[in-house]
């Protein structure tokens, strides 16, 4: 008898199982074939003869997967756009948690991939991770998406950028208000932080500008990515008569798919989710990082640096400055709605649109913006928003 006795039939069964496991792994593992983004642009045709600027390596770090149909995907689309530029090489890593791991990732990108600039894209990376690594590596530039940079308090090699995507949410609200039959809109939100509250308010103001009786019901799931709670919140709102859903979570995938399953309308966020809801997708508020990143690349290639102020520390903008955009309209949007949305868009583009102007009451009846007072989008008071405008069903404290 051999040392290990395995019956022949068991052995054959095991071999078939292993082979099936291996052969079908491509189907159930959920890996999408990612073409490595670190292929250098060799032989770029823009220069004949001598090479121009040295190859710049730029690092990107995402908190979620690159194909989450949400926040990380929006940044990834920006990265893909600049990876095509001549003499730019990008390296990236996805699903990096907001803990010591992101510091490790940044350090290996600096030491092993020799990046000249890093774009850690999640808001939570800033304090303490970016601050620590930036202080230890003054030669590398760090660009954080979130607008947190404070002159004098933070290391000089950090720059901030953020977009006023609530402008796009306003237009999405206009389209939702005109398309909704019941006048009830639903918003699945993660946490009651100022950025989220501002999006909810802008959406509501947009909807009520075309339908003064529209209401927006808000449910907070408590965290940035809790698919089960998002689905539950979406379903419960549909059961209560909501017929347009939207959300502010890291990945709107679940809410969009739930809306499509329940045969109602939806508007997207972060990125374009029309593929997930071909019938119900009206429009969406999307980031447009391509133009922002291209601008940063032009500055970096010209040798400018954020450390001495050559690149501005704070970069912000809305629809007009191409920091965000509105998704192409879906098939369910009527021609009249499109016209109305385009009129509002024109107002944003020529700078005449003011979303937050007095007199504005919150949903408890209290006056939060006095009559005659107007807030520009860049106004810092809006960054502390902790009230819901009239028409929102929900509380900031929940």
């Amino acid at each position: 008898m051999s040392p290990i006795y395995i019956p022949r039939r068991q052995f054959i069964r095991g071999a078939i199982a292993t082979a099936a496991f291996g052969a079908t792994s491509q189907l159930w593992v959920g890996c999408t074939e990612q073409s490595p983004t670190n292929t250098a642009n060799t032989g770029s045709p823009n220069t004949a003869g001598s090479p121009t600027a040295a190859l710049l390596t730029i690092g990107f770090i995402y908190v979620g997967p690159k194909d989450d149909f949400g926040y990380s995907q929006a940044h990834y689309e920006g990265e893909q756009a600049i990876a095509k530029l001549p003499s730019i090489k990008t390296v990236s890593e996805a699903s990096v948690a907001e803990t010591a791991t992101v510091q490790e990732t940044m350090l290996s990108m600096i030491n092993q991939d020799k990046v000249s600039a890093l774009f850690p894209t999640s808001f939570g990376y800033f304090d303490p991770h970016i601050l620590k690594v930036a202080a230890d590596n003054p030669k590398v530039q760090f660009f954080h998406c979130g607008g947190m940079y404070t002159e004098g308090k933070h290391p000089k090699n950090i720059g901030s950028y953020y977009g006023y995507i609530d402008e796009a949410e306003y237009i999405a609200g206009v389209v939702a208000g005109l398309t909704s039959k019941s006048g009830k809109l639903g918003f699945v939100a993660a946490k009651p932080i100022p950025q989220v509250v501002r999006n909810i308010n802008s959406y509501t103001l947009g909807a009520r500008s075309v339908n003064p009786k529209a209401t927006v019901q808000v449910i907070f799931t408590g965290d940035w990515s809790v698919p089960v709670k998002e689905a539950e919140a979406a379903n419960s709102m549909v059961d209560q008569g909501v017929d347009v859903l939207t959300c502010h979570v890291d990945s709107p995938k679940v809410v969009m798919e739930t809306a499509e399953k329940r045969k109602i309308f939806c508007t997207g966020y972060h990125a374009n989710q029309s593929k997930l809801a071909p019938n119900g997708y009206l429009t969406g508020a999307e980031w447009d990082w391509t133009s922002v990143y291209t601008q940063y690349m032009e500055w970096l290639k010209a040798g400018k640096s954020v450390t001495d102020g050559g690149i501005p520390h704070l970069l912000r903008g809305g629809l007009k400055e191409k920091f965000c955009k509105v998704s192409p309209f879906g098939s369910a949007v009527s021609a009249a709605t499109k016209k109305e949305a385009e009129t509002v868009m024109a107002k944003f583009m020529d700078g005449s649109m003011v979303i937050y102007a007095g007199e504005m009451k919150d949903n408890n009846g209290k006056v939060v913006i006095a009559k005659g007072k107007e807030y520009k989008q860049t106004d810092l008071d809006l960054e502390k928003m902790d009230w819901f405008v009239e028409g929102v069903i929900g509380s900031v404290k929940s």
Partner: protein
Amino acid sequence: MIAYQPLQNSYKHMINLRDRWRSTSENIFIPIGAVIASLVVFGIFCAMQGKNPLAIYGTIYQSAFGNSFSWQGTLIRSAPLMLTSLCTALPAMLGLTIIGNEGALIVGGLGAIAMGLAVASLPPVMVQMAMAMAGLIAGGLWIMFVGAIKYYRGVNETISSLLMNYIAIALLNTLVEGVMRDPSSLNKPSSFPLTAVNMLQSIPNSRVHYGLIYGLVACAIAYFLIQRTTFGFAVRTVGGNIRAAKIAGLPVGKLTLIVTFLGGSCAGLAGMVEVAAIHGSANASLNADYGYSGILVAFIARQNPLVAVLVAVLMGGILSSGSALQRSFGLPDATVLLFQGIVFLAILFSESLYGRLDFFKDREPEVKIDASASAV
């Protein structure tokens, strides 16, 4: 035909290592064999994705254990796992399966930050000791509650500790976004931060913080306590046969409370380390699944605290290499989860080989027979 006499079990306690080397080496070679087998399977997977497996192996080794920079990265990732694994390993000696490491970590972190802010005016060493105490006690009480309701009310400790995790996460979110909130932490709700001097420092000349030392010391103490003291012997007896222990008069209730407190306090200390060494404040990032990874480490290490150190380092290495695989080969971010799963499945499957392979069965030491001996 078996050509040797397999060793009778009754003789095992009398022979020395020279005769026991086969069964001892079983505990070393089978896990190593499992890791090698998992590397082969992972290599096949990568080959099917179109990547060169040998290059992949090279990258895994380089990024996990190749140079000082990689080693530090691996140790940083494994430090919290050593502590959280004890929250499962210690009660397992009692026969309890506790998976509340995440909750104990979070509660320990909350206790540590509350203490750190309350006594911030004391000298830094005292502040850190106070924070460690607060973390230990908070985490310990959390799991002791699980042990208490198990002993006095018969509530299944696995389910109760798992559900307590969710309570702890909800508590963290409520406090950090409510009462403990720092108003200037607008879009990332956090508690007030610790001052820089009060934070846990790094080991000189490296990036690794002192939490690693805490983990190593805690695992050493846990091993010594369970394997070399009478208290530990009592614990193992309860774990082996609780009725026999009760008949022998062991205080099972007290032992349950003490051991669950100790286990929870280790995870609570991990929470304190996260707050004091990495974040500097308590916020939702405390909820980083270190607890759940600790359960994995404890089970793979078969509840042995010293082996848990090695398994934690292995896991830190796998996580480090996952990072490099994404960047160098463009493999998707789920690859590291796949690799982790293959390694752990291989190790778990290999458990069925213990005691089955003839090579590792001890043989009876040979007895020389004198030619002049008679058969009488």
